[in-house]
């Protein structure tokens, strides 16, 4: 028997009862669709959960610069980091023990009746700090390269520091006194999502910071796009200090893969069972209907045997019919599953994540289910004696 003949006979056998074949395949459709939806939703949800909860930490890289006789990282070196692909913003800061508790006043006069003198942290930073700490300027502006070049005596207050010092408006160019010197407040930085402690600090340009012992960069704050943190964590030290990269300590977020895998595993464990149960139900359905079909087609089997069909030909035809039923169920089920995932993601505004291998594996799984389900009925058909089948 030629393969093409076998194919034709099996296809004709299925198409002879199209409604029944479709209903038989429905079990596999449901099983495969459940599996695809389960796996796809788990991957999508896992990615989404990780994305939602860990976006901040997953994109934050911090490089700690240890103190040394000579500066390991210069203030301008942060520009090298911003050139790296995947870096969205970066800023260098300088903090020191001696600058942690500095007396800051909002006016020149010392008024014993008012608490205008505070002990605040003074931090020097490069101009890109608002972006690096994911904050925004509530008022005014942050200092820029021009301020640094001119050595302007300007400061930016953290939101909390501004409240404490009573600086509410900048239109009259208020000044704060750090030690004995006055500095013009040009902006108030707030809504910090990273390094929230800077909200109660006084932020200085590096040129001014030197006066308070803030000469050397102690930390570099880097933000990356999602997924780039690992790579940037490796590249940043080399970009900042090629000759002393090993001395820099990088704090990068843990790979989100583990968290995502965890979520996937939790969801998968629950729903995979559901999908497999559906698939088993589908297989039992195919086996059942194929067996009934065999019983209904006893005379046809007898005729085929009379026409010269060997037992293996009869078995192969029924196996192919059940496999094709399973394959059809797999293809339709996989399609339904993919569409369902896309619809779920569209409603939830998620990004669908689906392993492309699933699109190939699902129909194969369906065919395999059909093949296994057809084994017993096919054997029953093959074992029939032609003389009994024709009786």
């Amino acid at each position, binding site marked *: 028997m030629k393969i093409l003949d076998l194919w034709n006979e099996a296809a004709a056998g299925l198409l002879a009862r199209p409604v029944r074949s479709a209903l038989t395949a429905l079990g596999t459709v449901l099983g495969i669709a459940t599996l695809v939806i389960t796996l796809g939703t788990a991957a999508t949800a896992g990615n989404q959960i990780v994305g939602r909860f860990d976006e901040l930490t997953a994109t934050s890289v911090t490089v700690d610069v240890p103190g040394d006789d000579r500066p390991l990282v210069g203030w301008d070196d942060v520009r090298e980091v911003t050139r790296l692909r995947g870096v969205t913003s970066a800023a260098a800061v300088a903090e020191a023990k001696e600058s942690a508790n500095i007396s800051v006043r909002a006016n020149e006069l010392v008024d014993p009746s008012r608490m205008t003198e505070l002990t605040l942290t003074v931090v020097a930073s490069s101009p890109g700090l608002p972006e690096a700490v994911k904050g925004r300027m509530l008022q005014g502006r942050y200092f820029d390269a021009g301020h640094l070049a001119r050595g302007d005596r300007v400061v930016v207050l953290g939101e909390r520091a501004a409240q404490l010092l009573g600086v509410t408006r900048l239109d009259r160019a208020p000044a704060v006194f750090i030690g004995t010197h006055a500095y013009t407040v040009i902006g108030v930085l707030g809504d910090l999502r990273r390094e929230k402690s800077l909200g109660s600090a006084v932020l200085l340009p590096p040129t001014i910071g030197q006066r308070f012992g803030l000469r050397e960069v102690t930390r570099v704050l880097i933000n990356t796009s999602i997924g780039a943190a690992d790579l940037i964590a490796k590249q940043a030290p080399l970009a900042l200090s090629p000759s002393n990269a090993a001395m820099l300590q990088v704090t990068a977020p843990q790979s989100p893969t583990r968290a995502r895998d965890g979520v996937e595993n939790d969801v998968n464990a629950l729903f995979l069972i559901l999908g497999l149960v559906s698939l088993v139900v589908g297989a039992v359905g195919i086996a059942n209907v194929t067996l009934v079909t065999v019983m209904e087609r006893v005379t046809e089997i007898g005729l*085929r045997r009379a026409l010269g069909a060997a037992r293996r030909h009869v078995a192969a035809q029924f196996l192919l019919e059940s496999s094709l039923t399973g394959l059809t169920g797999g293809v339709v089920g996989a399609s339904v599953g993919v569409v369902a995932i896309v619809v779920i993601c569209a409603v939830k505004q998620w990004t669908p994540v689906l392993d492309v291998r699933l699109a190939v594996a699902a129909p194969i799984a369906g065919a395999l289910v059909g093949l296994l389900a057809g084994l017993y009925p096919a054997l029953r058909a093959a074992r029939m004696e032609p*003389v009994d089948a*024709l009786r």
Partner: protein
Amino acid sequence: MPEAVIELTGLTKEFPADPPVLGLSQVSLRVGAADYVAVVGPSGSGKSTLLNVLGLLDRPTSGSYLLDGIETTSMPDSARTRLRGSRIGFVFQSFHLLAHRSVVENVMLAEVYGGRDRKNRRTRALEQLDRVGLSHRVNFPPERLSGGERQRAAIARALLGEPSLLLCDEPTGALDSKNTETVLALFDDLCAQGLTIVVITHENEVSGRAQRRLRITDGVLSEDP
């Protein structure tokens, strides 16, 4: 003496029971090429058992059966199947046409298992349909044919592959007299063309058309004068 298509010697068929039921008892028979033989007998006499053994659908318990000179009783199942597919054509009382296939597709089914070239299968099937006078019903589904036409389609299927033996089990049992006559006339033609035909029947009209009548009673075969 021309070579026999069928040669049975001391053929016995017992069905397992307690005691065993005798289907055929020491049957010996020689049927030559282009013979037209009718086997008659009452129900349960062993007609169908004889047909099943002749058609290699069932094995005898003992004895010898040579088909076209080939000993078949000791053959493995697969070889018997191949021999059946290549040398024997079957015509059944209830036609056994596949309802969801057209007439020509039903005829072509006879070559699916023979391993013959697919290329001209349809042409060969059309030739057989023409031979039985069904050229005008090629693409019809079987349910739109009359009883006689269905049986002729079944005969065309049996003829595809050029068998040396046509075994017919009550071929006119489901036909009216007009269609019976058409089918019997076709058998006459086929026999005249050299085909060996064995017909199992209980109808005198059918057995009367055969060249030779055999009677089977309680499994014992004898010539019917």
